[in-house]
């Protein structure tokens, strides 16, 4: 790349970001950094490229390094490209006791990738993550903002098939429906 890529928030996202910045006292706008990095990740293909982080830094008038050092600390920020749907399977104790490994194995076979990898068609990334507060409904996985709980191999199959059929990216956005039973 010879020229530096410059990314900018859409007007819609910029309006949300401006509202977030207003939550903090005068001069404390840096508090908006994490929420804005989430916005950037959702807007720019599910991961934080350097230009995406620069966009946030510019918006908040902070040094780019302040955005990089925060982005690299938190596990929800992807610093590398990911598939349209990231399947994040919990691997901690209660999930493990309830068969989380079997789910991971099964997904690896079904998707033809190893944990941490992305399918060739760019549809799925498979990750294992630490306890997501769903231990009573273990095993579970998260995709975008949604929790899929009490998983069985069949349920996992169905989920993957329906996500594939949908073909849409799943990110954390305010458009996610809130559906609890």
């Amino acid at each position: 790349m010879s020229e530096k890529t410059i990314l900018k928030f859409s007007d819609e996202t910029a309006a949300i970001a401006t509202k977030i910045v207003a939550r903090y006292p005068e001069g404390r706008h840096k508090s908006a950094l994490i929420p804005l990095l989430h916005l950037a990740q959702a807007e720019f293909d599910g991961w934080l490229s350097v230009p995406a982080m620069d966009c946030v830094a510019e918006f908040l008038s902070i040094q780019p390094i302040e955005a990089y050092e925060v982005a690299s600390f938190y596990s929800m920020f992807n610093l590398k490209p990911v598939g349209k749907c990231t399947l994040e399977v919990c691997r901690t104790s209660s999930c493990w006791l309830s068969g989380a490994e079997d789910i991971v194995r099964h997904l690896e076979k079904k998707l033809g990738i190893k944990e941490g990898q992305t399918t060739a068609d760019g549809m799925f990334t498979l990750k294992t993550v630490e306890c997501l507060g769903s231990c009573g409904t273990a095993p579970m996985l998260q995709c975008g903002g949604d929790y899929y709980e009490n998983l069985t191999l069949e349920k996992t199959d169905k989920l993957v098939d329906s996500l594939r059929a949908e073909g849409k990216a799943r990110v954390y956005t305010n458009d996610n429906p809130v559906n609890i039973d």
Partner: protein
Amino acid sequence: MGKKILLANDHIEGIRFLDTYRKHGGYASLEKALKSMTPEQIVEEVKTSGLRGRGGAGFPTGMKWSFLAKPEGVPRYVVCNADESEPGTFKDRYLMERIPHLLIEGMILSSYALGAKTSYIYIRGEYFYVARILEQAIDEAYAAGLLGKNILNSGFDLDLYVQIGAGAYICGEETALLESLEGKRGNPRIKPPFPAIAGLYGCPTVVNNVETIAAVVPIVNEGGAAYAAIGVGNSKGTKLISASGHINKPGVYEIELGVPVEEFIYSDEYCGGIRNGKKLKAVVAGGSSVPILPTELILNTAAGEPRLMSYESLGDGGFATGTMLGSGGFIVMDEDTSIVKNLYTFARFYHHESCGQCSPCREGTGWMEKILHKILHGHGTLADVDLLWDIQSKIEGKTICPLGEAAAWPVAAAIRHFRKEFEDFIRNGEHVNDVKHYYRLNNLTALIN
């Protein structure tokens, strides 16, 4: 029947919404407080109630509140800790997604009591949809004049915001949380100064767990003395327990503190016994950080008394034979469970979550994970058990924040109570209790490779 205070109405349809919440007595506490109580009176009621922090440490809430500095002209903040990342704990999520207004009412009451005009709920990023539920509820509260300027014509103003994190267990530690809320990496601060003196933006701040804040609502409504009449000893009131693992009925249960552990595990009102008719092997009673106890020590104390679900009874015997109530993350393991492999998932967790500031924690958690990984691979030696013991003993007390202890205690307790199982595992290269686990071990080994 146990007494339910926080979750008395959790199954009412629509309780998530303001109308229904109010129809069932919601915001009566706030009206009472704003009409007839001074902030100091609320602090007094909370002191009288004997409420202890429900985030894990169990520090008396009233006392914490009375430490809050009140310099002239400096804003004060109330921050709710909704980071809930301690493995085995999911009660705050349940409370927030079912009855978000209970937390919001508690936040308004606490902010009024402590003189905060802006308050934040810091919620873990993975609970994104829960944050949306809270935000919708907050919008309802603003529209009804329960938040914003001149709340219920009392002259009290409050703005309440939800702040989302981005995946870091350490941000549940209160000073790391404040750093994160300031837009930084979640590195815990050196204390003192405590947040009560210099917290958010250097201003006096109270950080409390979701359940603690929610409990302020019934305390104001019924009075501190009524709350203190529930429970046992210095364990007052009720506690939300997140029950998971090999039980028939995993879920969130509100218990009156003092219920016998045996009743909690076996009665149909709670966990409903061990799944598939198996026998109980061990319990982690208060979230991954607290010491694991084998059946005989979790059901009864070393002195032979029935063990109760309370701060004192679970702590009876110290770490030699006891444990802690912690966050109330109650993980049950049946007879087929490999303690070694369960411990590996904990060790991996703490290594992953160490912020990396302090060498004993950063390096020690890494070594503990590596050694357990080696044992799981069938390459362990008997000396590794002593090495694990040695490493854990060199983390405790040598770090800025208690994540060090949280990582060390589970290792120490597993070895203390199940040393023979580690040795057998090392000798045989596997957990020999049953075939299913042998199969699983192969899976795990493949996963690691």
